[in-house]
């Protein structure tokens, strides 16, 4: 049986993130500018690196954009609401 050792702290260079998410460099730079994702490293030699959470978020955005044909305003609203739901859910689990 195959064994996988996932590393939740793994980071990926932007070229890999583009491949993993189906996004583009231009779009990723745009999302960074809007504070939706941010690189964990900005090495001058090796470029931007993103963590696993950013990859998931970019996949969310691409799915909303490509499969559900949402515009940027709708995507921004949904991402914001999802963040709020997650924060409230975490708070609820903490208080239980």
């Amino acid at each position, binding site marked *: 049986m195959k064994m*996988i050792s*996932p590393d*939740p*702290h793994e980071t990926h260079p932007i070229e890999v993130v583009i491949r993993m998410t189906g996004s583009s460099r231009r779009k990723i730079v745009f999302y960074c500018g809007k504070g939706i994702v941010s690189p964990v490293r900005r090495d001058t030699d090796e470029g931007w690196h993103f963590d*696993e959470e950013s990859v*998931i978020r970019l996949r969310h955005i691409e799915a909303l954009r490509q499969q559900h044909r949402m515009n940027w305003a709708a995507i921004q609203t949904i991402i914001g609401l999802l963040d709020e739901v*997650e924060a409230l859910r975490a708070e609820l*689990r903490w208080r*239980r």
Partner: protein
Amino acid sequence: MAVEFRDYYEVLGVARDASQADVKKAFRKLARVHHPDVAKDKSTAEEKFKEINEAYEVLSDPEKRKKYDTLGANWNQQGGPPPSGGGYSSGPMPGGAEFQFDGTGFSDFFEQYFSGGGARRSAGFGGGGFPGQGGARRGQDIEGDLMVTLDEAFHGSMRTIALRKSDPRTGQVVTDEVQVRIPAGIGEGQRLRVPGHGGDGAGGGADGDLYLRVRMAAHPDFRVKGHDLFRDLELAPWEAVLGTTVAVNIPGGKSVQVKIPSGTGSGDQLRLKGYGLPKKGAPGDLYVEISIATPPSVDGEERVLWEKLRDVSKFKPRED
């Protein structure tokens, strides 16, 4: 795929109208008996502990409990429960494939109705699935909850996860098994990505990824926030006023001596540095939250002494 109904009230041994406080009390009582660290029969303890945790996961969350109560009321009507509002195949799955997990610590029943905070969902509204070169389409990402005990978060562990994919058109079921290493120091809400074990790609596209979202199993004594742990410690009034040294249990069945300074009040927190979950750099901390316990009743000499203290004390807890 058919799933078996779970009676969470029966698992915790509480009435259907039990208050949240009663649910919590029942969970703590059972969890102390069946916790793998303390149980006499280790072989069955882990399964039982996970069963109790799953029941608590649902009944301690008002939203999930409400949904569970609705499900329960309708379970045997017309051969099954009402639509769950987004079960397995809620996402735009290519071909409408359905998924079930084994080895996550949660039952199929939980997976179907409560995973992901309400319903099993694929990571990211069908995350993945984007077109690749030459019409190839990447497979869907699949997300499921993974119950992780505090002990696993401390030491790491290995899990065999089985993902059963069924095609409702052909009835064909394919099981994809993979061993997943859970790294030490993993925390609530973090996702573990298992590449290539999600939905099948189409037209030569890559398979999607499987995401396992960590849900920390509730512990009878410790609560987890990030890499820090929190636990309650009750003190007698005189211990809080005069100060004392008490043995405080830490994870792993050990204890440390903790000096309680005089004048400690309810709600005060004492930080035990480095006794939290492992973390790159420095481990988290263990916070001991103080509450003052009072004797349920006093009489005889004890009462006389409390009355004497009342008369001689200059302490004024209120400003009036």
